């Protein structure tokens, strides 16, 4: 049910960002950008905590009047940011987690592709279709 999904590399540049085209995409880009600060804050707060699945999921980063932004970080400091519509019947936390898990799985599949150079933009069609499936549910 995401309205925007973004994959940010370790160096905080986007590897993949996609929004529902109906909306003003620039706004989403800004939201994702601002969320990076929150993500960094959470990561540093964790410190040397064990990195288990639970802590990969950062949870709600910050809410706005229309949207909520959720974050997820992988062990390699690749960040997934998802913007969901607040008007949606409150998505359960589990659902968000499962969506991030799917994202993570697809991301690893992309990584496994020897033709993918880490740091390149993600152009995998499989990844695209997976993200689309997540976003289409909204509409």
């Amino acid at each position, binding site marked *: 049910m995401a309205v925007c999904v973004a994959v940010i590399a370790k160096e905080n540049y986007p590897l993949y960002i996609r929004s529902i085209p109906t909306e003003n995409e620039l706004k989403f880009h800004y939201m994702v950008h601002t969320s990076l600060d929150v993500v960094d804050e959470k990561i540093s707060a964790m410190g040397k905590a064990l990195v288990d699945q639970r802590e990969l999921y950062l949870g709600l980063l910050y809410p706005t009047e229309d949207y909520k932004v959720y974050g997820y970080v992988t062990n390699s400091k690749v960040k997934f940011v998802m913007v969901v519509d607040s008007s949606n019947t409150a998505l359960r936390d589990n659902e968000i987690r499962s969506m991030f898990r799917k994202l993570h799985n697809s991301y*690893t599949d992309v990584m*496994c*592709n*020897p*033709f*993918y150079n880490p740091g390149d933009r993600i*152009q995998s*069609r499989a990844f695209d279709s997976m993200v689309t499936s997540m976003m289409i549910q909204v509409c």
Partner: protein
Amino acid sequence: MEGLTLSDAEQKYYSDLFSYCDIESTKKVAANGRVLELFRAAQLPNDVVLQIMELCGATRLGYFGRSQFYIALKLVAVAQSGFPLRVESINTVKDLPLPRFVASKNEQESRHAASYSSDSENQGSYSGVIPPPPGRGQVKKGSVSHDTVQPRTSADQQEPASPVVSPQQSPPTSPHTWRKHSRHPSGGNSERPLAGPGPFWSPFGEAQSGSSAGDTVWSGHSPPPPQETWVSFADTPPTSTLLTMHPASVQDQTTVRTVASATTANEIRRQSSSYDDPWKITDEQRQYYVNQFKTIQPDLNGFIPGSAAKEFFTKSKLPILELSHIWELSDFDKDGALTLDEFCAAFHLVVARKNGYDLPEKLPESLMPKLIDLEDSADVGDQPGEVGYSGSPAEAPPSKSPSMPSLNQTWPELNQSSEDTAIVHPVPIRMTPSKIHMQEMELKRTGSDHTNPTSPLLVKPSDLSEESKINSSVKFASGNTVDGYSSSDSFTSDPEQIGNNVTHQRSHSGTSPDNTAPPPPPPRPQPSHSRSSSLDMNRTFAVTTGQQQAGVVAHPPAVPPRPQPSQAPGPVVHRPVDADGLITHTSTSPQQIPEQPNFADFSQFEVFAASNVNEEQDDEAEKHPEVLPVEKASDPASSLRVAKTDSKIEEKTAASVPANVSKGTTPLAPPPKPVRRRLKSEDELRPEVDEHTQKTGVLAAVLASQPSIPRSVGKDKKAIQASIRRNKETNTVLARLNSELQQQLKDVLEERISLEVQLEQLRPFSHL
């Protein structure tokens, strides 16, 4: 029909066309299919075509003789010129241009036009163009075709020389031999491997994109591969015309080519299209791929690491993005390495891409990695048919690729749900495992071994949860709220622990006086145990059946005799109510103990199991007493629920007996498996009550007959698959058994509740 007078150009042109259609080299009759294609290529409305056919007499005759054919062609020209179709018109219309047969692909037209207009002699044109199959190409209007007719005929004669001349570039030998080969009208191959000169029929496959009524021969052709642009790994001339080969000739060509390709490794692309299925790999292609695989990885069962594959496929000079997509499609198990099947699929896709095919969104059915040996090509052929054409519904609109009109015909057939082939999704349970299903599981198993441990884990949770329920009911009086995990502990580890549980239960309550042997516990499928009890057992059940095979093979654990869950509540119910009941129970429990030694009497069970397969439940029930020793804890329960649950228990015991039997008889491989499966299935497959006994009987029989299965996928695949099938059957049996047991459990719990209510009512009086 009046006589037909043809000009010289027309005569030649028509004779060429006739020869083209004369795929059987009869010189008398033009093949209906070809003719139909031809007419469709004429871009005339269907009714006009029918009218033409009628007029020329083919409808009457039923075939196209030479005269009919010529008349038809003349009528086509007439129609194309806009004149009304009349029999008279064939001779009256003057200066009729030659009938035009248009290629839907202008690209090829221009190419061919360029190729043979540039040099009307055929030889030179080979450099860029591999002769498409017989007579394919553009029909040049008017004089051009006229000219080309002559060169073509001369080309025929020159063909023997052409192989020598043309491919001055690299993979030369293959095209030559191919051409030479194809020139021999081998069974229906009246192709004229003409490259440049000669009228090229527009890819009829394209022309008839909508209609496959015509010769389906052409369905596989088409993509007029951007031949000039097609770059093989070694910059050899495109052999893409291979695509346009007549299927019959494909084999020949590919064989020849294979030989040549062996010499020019990585330099020659095989045709990527075949008769029906553009994605089917022909044997020769496959052999070539295998050879290439060997150059990278000598072990056919091994993997090609991603980096090596990347280098290899980068040589094809496809853009990285497309290679990346090809990789995504072909790396079925997403492990970053290519097995032989995956490699062949990737190679095939590269070839297709180079020949102009657009990449599909999903892996085509015929390219799915198969677990069948290469020798077993029959199965390979079956596979695409079996599973249906799922997985390529997304390919149906390859209309996005106008270069593949022929593919459009075949791909609409491929529209089925891809559920079956989507490995990443939970696989639905199959009662009768299909090959693909087994392969998927094999794939998952081989591709990602980490799933193996999960299968026992997945199996275990249900077992454990079931056990936990039992235990909780058993220990209810003791106020023991055992959660799934802790109880599972007792079951997970060893037979001794199971025995502990048994004794524990026995201590709570005796066995029922009813001597109908409770079904022996299904043998545990896996030695390892998982804790999670909240898994989607359906998925794991289906998914792990195959994995369990391997798991079973790898870990032939001893199966602890598991007390029947149905037995557990029995003792509990009785205990609070009646001391006598306890006594009876305990009295029966000793009975169990002495009977226990019989537990090891697997020979008895094996017979029982074998005979159980087709027996009715009642019969099985009769044999329960034999099995009873195995199921000690089940006795108390069965005694309690004589009335209503006996039959169920008996079924259960019967079911589990065979399981145990088989378990005992095949100590190495299956013993644990059936038990585990039963436990697992109990959790998830409640509704399947009826078939428990039969299933377990089958299960036992199957297990009894199972040899130890070699773990490696590469060996004894068929044995593995067979055993997988059997195990699946036993799984289903156990699942039903599970549901039955669940029912019994519920019943017993109800009884218990009612008894406790009674107790409460009685208690006040007792105090008086």
